[in-house]
């Protein structure tokens, strides 16, 4: 103790340039909090606009850092700003921006607390941005809580709606439980290695440990994030929460929050536990197969669009888990797997956000989330119908919409690994994508081929912000589908350095 006191305090190296995005974002969210206090109830839109500008502003340093191209590492490797981090930070910020656009009118018209809503959204985003750079168990934990706790509150944002309450409760309880399990795992891993920095953990663990305690630790950690990405059997919260939460929040949870889980998994698996593929590969194999199959099967029976999309996003998580299940056989496989997962994340974000944006737009008229309320949408809202069709079939993986490329990458990673198990998983994925088509197409069928249920064919008014969200996502989906190279480049860039 005395030694510690006596030693001169050496401030850790802080690279402010590297932290610029986080700092800008923090500044913006504080500004939002303050401005909200002084703005009249009628002019709360300013707050959202400020937040939007702030999000775009925090993208700027990311661009500069990307151009600069150097990896920056701080706190003895606990916080790293590399291409992986930058690409995914950009993803979170853009998704956050789109969610903000989607929320603008939804929250305003629903008589909610707009300023606080924006603040919480930004906080959660900050957690995600931090997550991208976290290469340390403790940092990951903090980032996870930072992104989760505001999300719990956002899920229950419609305070007087019992469903919203219920959504928040379920999300909160299960979230906390799974993070407790994850913490328990972290404590075990820390105990086995004596360090929390992922790189050091990897070094300490060596190749393929046989220590049951370590295996359990890794397993518990993976479980914590499996919850976050709503992998079966840790997905139970997802459909209920998605259905009950305000739709923009659902979009946010199903895209950003899920992506954060995958980001954490990528870092943990490919940096911290890369040598331990005997533990995580079979685990992810089971999770992936279960997740996509269960998600798709249950989705078949859904009659509510949001719930259907919830199960769809469970199934999509299953596809995204495939690279994890096949990425352990070597450096090359790991690289392909990471690229596949990241590319899938990018494309998934665009198409899923788009689908939710349409749901929000349609619900403005129909006030319903039932699939049957989409009947004959084509006759009175052809534009929305076409967009929804694009997003749905993109999710189903039909060219020329972005989803096909994402799925191709998943298949590629599986075939590249070349083991019997990986090919089997690829076939399971293939069969699943056929099952999935059935429910995506059932929504399309409702829109195109069924009559309007209540004969009400007044056109749907799409507010400009929502329109912008639709335009961004649709453009992204189609552009990726036709010229995937640009996005695939990002995926390649974002590979984590694997040892």
């Amino acid at each position: 103790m005395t030694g510690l006191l006596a030693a001169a305090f050496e401030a850790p190296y802080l690279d402010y340039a590297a932290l610029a995005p986080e700092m800008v974002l923090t500044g913006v969210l504080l500004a939002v909090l303050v401005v909200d206090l002084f703005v009249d109830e009628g002019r709360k839109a300013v707050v959202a606009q400020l937040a939007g500008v702030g999000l775009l502003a925090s993208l700027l340093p990311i661009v500069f850092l990307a151009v600069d191209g150097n990896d920056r590492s701080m706190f003895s490797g606990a916080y790293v700003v590399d291409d992986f981090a930058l690409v995914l930070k950009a993803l979170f910020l853009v998704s956050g921006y789109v969610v903000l656009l989607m929320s603008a009118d939804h929250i305003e018209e629903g008589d909610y607390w707009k300023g606080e809503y924006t603040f919480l959204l930004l906080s959660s985003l900050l957690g995600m941005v931090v997550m991208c750079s976290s290469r340390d168990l403790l940092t990951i934990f903090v980032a996870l809580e930072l992104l989760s706790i505001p999300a719990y509150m956002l899920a229950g944002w419609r305070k007087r709606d019992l469903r919203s309450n219920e959504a928040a409760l379920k999300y909160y309880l299960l979230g906390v439980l799974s993070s407790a399990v994850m913490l328990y795992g972290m404590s075990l891993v820390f105990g086995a290695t004596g360090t929390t920095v992922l790189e050091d953990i990897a070094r300490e663990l060596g190749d393929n440990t046989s220590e049951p305690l370590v295996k359990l630790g890794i397993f518990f950690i993976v479980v914590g994030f499996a919850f976050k990405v709503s992998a079966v059997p840790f997905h139970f919260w997802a459909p209920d929460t998605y259905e009950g939460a305000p739709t923009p929040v659902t979009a946010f949870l199903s895209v950003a929050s899920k992506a954060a889980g995958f980001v954490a998994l990528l870092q943990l698996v490919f940096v911290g536990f890369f040598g331990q593929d005997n533990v995580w590969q079979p685990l992810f194999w089971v999770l992936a197969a279960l997740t996509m199959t269960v998600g798709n099967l249950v989705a078949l029976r859904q009659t509510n669009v949001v719930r259907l999309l919830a199960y769809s996003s469970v199934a999509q998580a299953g596809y995204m888990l495939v690279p994890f299940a096949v990425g352990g056989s070597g450096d090359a496989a790991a690289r392909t797997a990471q690229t596949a997962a990241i590319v899938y994340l990018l494309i998934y974000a665009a198409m899923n956000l788009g689908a939710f944006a349409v749901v929000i737009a349609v619900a403005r008229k129909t006030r319903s989330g039932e699939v049957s309320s989409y009947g004959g949408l084509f006759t009175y809202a052809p534009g929305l119908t076409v967009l929804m069709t694009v997003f749905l079939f993109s999710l189903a993986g039909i060219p020329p919409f972005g989803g096909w490329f994402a799925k191709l990458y998943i298949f590629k990673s599986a075939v590249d690994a070349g083991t019997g198990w990986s090919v089997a998983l690829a076939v399971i994925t293939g069969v699943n994508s056929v099952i999935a088509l059935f429910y995506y197409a059932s929504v399309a069928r409702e829109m195109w081929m069924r009559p309007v249920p209540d004969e009400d064919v007044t056109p749907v008014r799409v507010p400009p912000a929502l329109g912008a969200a639709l335009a961004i996502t649709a453009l992204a989906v189609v552009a990726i589908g036709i010229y995937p190279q640009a996005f695939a480049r990002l995926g390649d860039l974002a590979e984590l350095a694997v040892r």
Partner: protein
Amino acid sequence: MLENAWVIPALPVLSFVLILFFGKRLPKHGHEIGVAAVALAFVLACVCAVQWVQRPANLEVKPGSEEHAAAPGSPAQANAVAALEEKAPPGSEGGHEGEGKGEKEGEAGEHEAEPIRKPVVKEVTWFDNGQTRVKAGTHVDGLAVTMMFVVTLISLLVHVFSTSYMHGDRRYTHYFAALSLFTAGMLVMVTANNTLQLLVGWELMGLCSFMLIGHWWEERNNSNAALKAFFTTRTGDVGLLIGIAILFFAAGQTFDIADINAAALGGEVSHGLVLAGAAALLCGVIGKSAQFPLHTWLPDAMAGPTPVSALIHAATMVVAGVYLVARLYGVFWSGFDIGGGGINPVALVGGITVLIAAALAFVQTDIKKVLAYSTVSQLGYMVMALGVGAWTAGVFHLVTHAFFKGLLFLGAGSVSHAVHSFDMKKDMGGLREHMPITFKTFVIGSLALAGVPPLAGFWSKDEILLGASSNGYPVFLVIGLLGAALTAAYMTRCVYLTFFGEYRGHGQPHESPPAITVPLVVLAALSVVAGFVNVPGGEWFAKWTENETVLSAGVAHHSFSPFVALFGSALGLLGIAAGYAYYWRNLGPHRLTQRSGAAGTGYRILENKYGLDRLYTDWVVGGIKGPIARGAYWFNQRVIDGVVNGVGIIARGLARFVYDTVDQKVVDGVVNGAGIGAEDGGRVLRLMQTGRVQQYALFLFGAVVVLGGTLVLFTTG
């Protein structure tokens, strides 16, 4: 003209197109085009015939000396379009002393020195496929010239006849268009230098036959007859297709008929292959030429207009099968070893057909059906002739038969034109006074058919019998003689019922107009004189038509045998006499069918046409269309579509959700059936989603325990 023989089929094609598009607007509704085109074609065919006869005979062929030095038609040497080369016929070098082919060589020797005319071949490249260049073109030799002459002549007469007979028909124009197209098809076939082109003509005729049999398609019976004709011949065509395929490869990837014949006779190709090819082709012959057991369509085909029956179903199309055998004689010769003298399928089929069809002709009351069965029987003669090695006789009979059978059909047409019926027993009788020209010509035709000397039928039939007797086929000699007697008898019956006795019909029958009678007279004249073209001693027909294939195969030639001639004509006269006795003098066992059980049974068998129609229509066609097709479709809908449906059902049973899901008739396919299973899976899984948060937590921890436990246990061990 011989080089440009393609013009002859082209004329009716042109006529077809013109009639089809402009016929209705023309003053005569199109028949002027048809008649003119066919007349021109006939003139050109005559020119061909004259040129052929005048063509120097400078090709020497020795029996069994088939040697192929040059492989003609190899793609390398042929250049692009319109290679107007006159192909040197294979074996033209001559002089190679090949091995004797059979024991008949001595007899054949008498022709050895006599050279034949070189066929005129003109080819253009049709298409290249794989390593083969297929050339379309005309191959004009004596056989082709003869056929062109016969076809254009009969066609012309039938066209003329039809202008009156079909007058006022609601589809008059279409009728002439179809006739033109038919003539074109037949001419394409007879001039074809390759099997593919032959097939084109062959099927084109089938199509026209279909169209013309079904000309009055408002009646269900007529369209049924048309369909039956097409199906039956098409069934035979399976053999033709396969045969062409086999011969294509057997002859070294060529469709060229001369090459195929040469290869078949050359001995390099394995006998089995040639046998297979010949057997397959024979199926085609059986279908097209209405041989037993596929002869049943021809009597039904009488549903078409009578001139059509005369042209297509007596004189020309039905002899296409005979022509095929004659044309590809090398294949049949060596495949069935016709020179060998054993019983071979060709002769057998022909022989059976001769007898069974002749017997059937006795029980018909419809004049056209009598003639139809007679045609079947006579076709049997031709096939039998070819089968016993009497090539020239077969071809010659083809020609003479075309004349007198065409005559008979047109005569029947003339009669029906007058009495508006074909039923001899109900609506005819005693017409001899009302229709003198028709009567006289019909009798001439009947006598020719019966083989009464010196009419055409006598000469050709005599040659067949001669061939059968001298080539070592005594069985077929007997059949032929028996057939001759039967033929004479049923024709006598036919003539009696039609022209003698009391008129039994309605109204007052009149002799037909000149457009009808002139063709009758022309044909009658030909029926009288045509036989002299090949009288013993002259045998010009043989010299003109016999080609290299026939000679190199070693087909035997026999000198006239008075014994056979005498016997044959005697039997014919006997038949006539019997008929005369039975009908005119009312002698013989009348009402036998009522009195004798055996005779009655025989009659019924004949009436039922040996039950073949029932077999085909009810069992084969009905079976395929009915139970088999329905079964296959049932299989399709229930089994294939239901495979995974079934899986889904079992799955549901296990999950105790059978009842809920029955209404969910989502899908019936493999994928969709899986869908049902999937939906049920979804249903079960949904049950876990209870909505209770603590239950979720339980599942969470449960999964942790199960997965974690499994992981640690199984990866540690």
